[in-house]
């Protein structure tokens, strides 16, 4: 099974951890234990293929700034999360993205812009069009989510897997072709 390393980034308080917990635990949140080996692994099916996702959530350690580069080096795909109720969390993403590109040393890194807390429509300060514009600017995917109301949570992870697949198609099918040729 192909494994994907996904890093969830964003300022403190945007609800990163809520997205992660909702995604890995779903309805079984009561049994959740953050300290065990496979707390952040989840198997999903994307386009008919089974994928193992390992999610790195930096929640609680945003201020350990020197560690960010390593998170970024290790990640294959990134969820850049802001809260639609806090403009500053939206503005912070520009720097974060630049840092990713610098660390990865390429312009083409699979990432998805995530506007979280879309259940709090009353408190919204970042418009959906603002999010869409930034995503266009970033040349990445965009979705608004709500961990609380369980909106689009699975989608952001699966979309990201698709982006990673697009950038780096799996090698196995190629091999098959090759061996077929050899048989012929």
């Amino acid at each position: 099974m192909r494994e994907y390393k996904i890093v969830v980034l964003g300022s403190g308080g945007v609800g990163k951890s809520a997205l992660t917990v909702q995604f890995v635990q779903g309805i079984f949140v009561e049994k959740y234990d953050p300290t065990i080996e496979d707390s952040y692994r989840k198997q999903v099916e994307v386009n008919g293929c089974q994928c193992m996702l390992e999610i790195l959530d930096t929640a609680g350690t945003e201020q350990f700034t020197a560690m960010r580069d390593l998170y970024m080096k290790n990640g294959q795909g990134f969820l850049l999360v802001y809260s639609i109720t806090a403009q500053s969390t939206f503005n912070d993403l520009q720097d974060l993205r630049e840092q990713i590109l610098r660390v990865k040393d390429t312009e083409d890194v699979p990432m998805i812009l995530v506007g979280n807390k879309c259940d709090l429509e009353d408190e919204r300060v970042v418009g959906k069009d603002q999010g869409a514009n930034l995503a266009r600017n970033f040349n990445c995917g965009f979705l608004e989510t709500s961990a609380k109301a369980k909106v689009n949570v699975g989608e952001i992870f699966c979309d990201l897997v698709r982006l990673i697949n697009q950038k780096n198609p799996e090698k196995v099918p190629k091999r098959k072709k090759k061996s077929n040729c050899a048989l012929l």
Partner: protein
Amino acid sequence: MDLGRQESQDEGNRFWREEREEGAVYMVYLKRVTYRSHDRLEEGEKFMSHLMWETLKVRVIKAGTLERLVECMETCQGDLDSSHLNVFLSTYRTFATPEQVLKTLINRFIMLKSCAKDDDRKEMVEEQLKTIRSVISIWLDTHPDDFREHPDYPCLLDLEDFAKEHITDSDLGVRARHRLEKFQKEAKTLEESIEEMHLGGRHGLNGDKIILFNQISNRSVAEQLTFKDAELFRKVVPHHCLGAVWSRRRKKGGKNASSVVATIQQFNNVSLRVIATVLNTRGMKTSQRAKILQRWIEIAQELRDLKNFSSLRAIISGLQTHPVYRLRKTWAALPKNIMVLFTELSEIFSNENNQITSRELLMKEATAKFPDIESQNKTLQRRNLLKRQSWIENGIVQGTVPYLGTFLTDLTMIDTAFPDITDDNLINFEKHRKEFEVIAQLKLLQSAAQIYQIVKDENFWTWFYSVNVYTDTESHDLSCTIEPPSDSNAKIKKKSARSLPVFRSRAGSVPNRYPVFSTCLGHRPVKFDSAKFALFSCGLENRKSMSSIPDTLSTLAAPIMTHHSSTSSVVSSDSDNPSSPFRSSDTYVIRVSVNSTSDSDTHVYKSIMLTNTDHTHTVISKVLEKYCMEGKPEDYRLLQILEDGELLIPERANVFYALNNSSELNFVIKSREDYETSTLKRQKKRRFKKLSL
């Protein structure tokens, strides 16, 4: 009861049902208790001796109002439930203030006291009153800072009044008064010392001569960082780490978590100094800069010996920040064993599997006297053994400082996953019980951090704060002036390849490049994290993760690779690293299998690092050692497997130059006899062919 109680391990507690009362939800467990008959049973109780075991009902509060949670500090017999009290005292600040809790306790005391006149319940009530007194007393002793409410100290004043009126037979009131006076005194000295610092701090800087980084020994750097880290860690207020305090600090009504902030600041300060000292070397030669890298790696090792995982991680993170990590030439100038050391130390903090490595290590060493250092590298192994001996001989006991971030993440996640308030609008105490599991570990480590005996060295700290640190952008720009960025990477590589002879001539003084290194720096983070010395212990599973390997084995290797992390991840994060990890300027990694019998289809091979000084016999001995085979190298032949046959490497050859490097570096060793018979056969075949023609 005079019966010997023994809980049978295998039965344990079994969840039975949930019970609801006004203002509380309990979980009820059935607990099987086995009785052992006691020799000293009295005559009258003999009829009891047939009772082998019974099932007891155990109620644990799951959620409740503050009043109910306070009530639960008494068991149903009226005595103290210390485990509930422990959880409560460690976590209550997320749902109540000290004042509210004290008030609830006092109200309950007064209410119970009025019941004490009732004869039937007198005994029980007496017990309960005693428990409440112990609760207050334990609270005052174990969490004194809860009562540090400068400048008015309402809790201590309330407590004193309460004790004077209701608990005349104990010294509780006096203790409250003493505590109050102590706090007032401490607050005064603190104010004075802050004033002094303002006046004297600058003076100190001007007066003292600032020492240089290279004037401080590695050991002192490590000790001073540990001194600071241990001090800060001991001061961390455990409830500041709780999700409700730490991760919600920015929200409205967010609480102060200064003790956590101080620890993080120090962590960042260390990383920033690592980055600054490495980058502030523009005029220097690469080798001089490499010396600074080496120093930090050696300091990291000293921190490992001191079991200080906080600064250890700060240094490793600093070295792995992009501006430092991308300095390929500098890293390439490091001696091999230093590179091995760096790889091993950074593997401690691998994020794989929810940081299982560092978690397990911390649990193993938290309260151990000294660290249990392991290494794959022989030189390092020997050094560690010596160190260990000296620790034992000198009776050295080390404290422990953990990396706080792991606890902060775990507590943030618990805080996210479990609601504060249940659907019935009760305090979700089950959540706090989970939080307590993490807090209890933290407290255990805090006591371990007290063991260090290090004296502060002002000179070091003068240096530390005098270092000019850089912002992210500044670091990046500096790094790029030291080694220009990627578009010129290719040129650099070619250049260094051409300058190979220079390296070779100095081969004696410059140890061989460590090939994993190119893996590390070539943006191959996953490999770097997961595979422990992949190149040296290459088994089947690694074969899969290396892109340059023929595809024939992929199907065979596929089932093994699930955990050993993804080829894909390597490949994907690898877009900008055209060089193969197998080939660096003066080393090759070759794969060698052993031809046991006729079964030449064996897929098992070992990887051997080949340097430009290795002769055929050296290589064969290495292979024999890897396969744990006995025999002399002279009895074997080394052959390179080429597409169109095998190339015999002559006995006295330098393998590095002899091999055919336009082909895969796959080798086989065969015993002399096998080799000779196989060549004979081939010769015969050839003769046959010739004849038939």
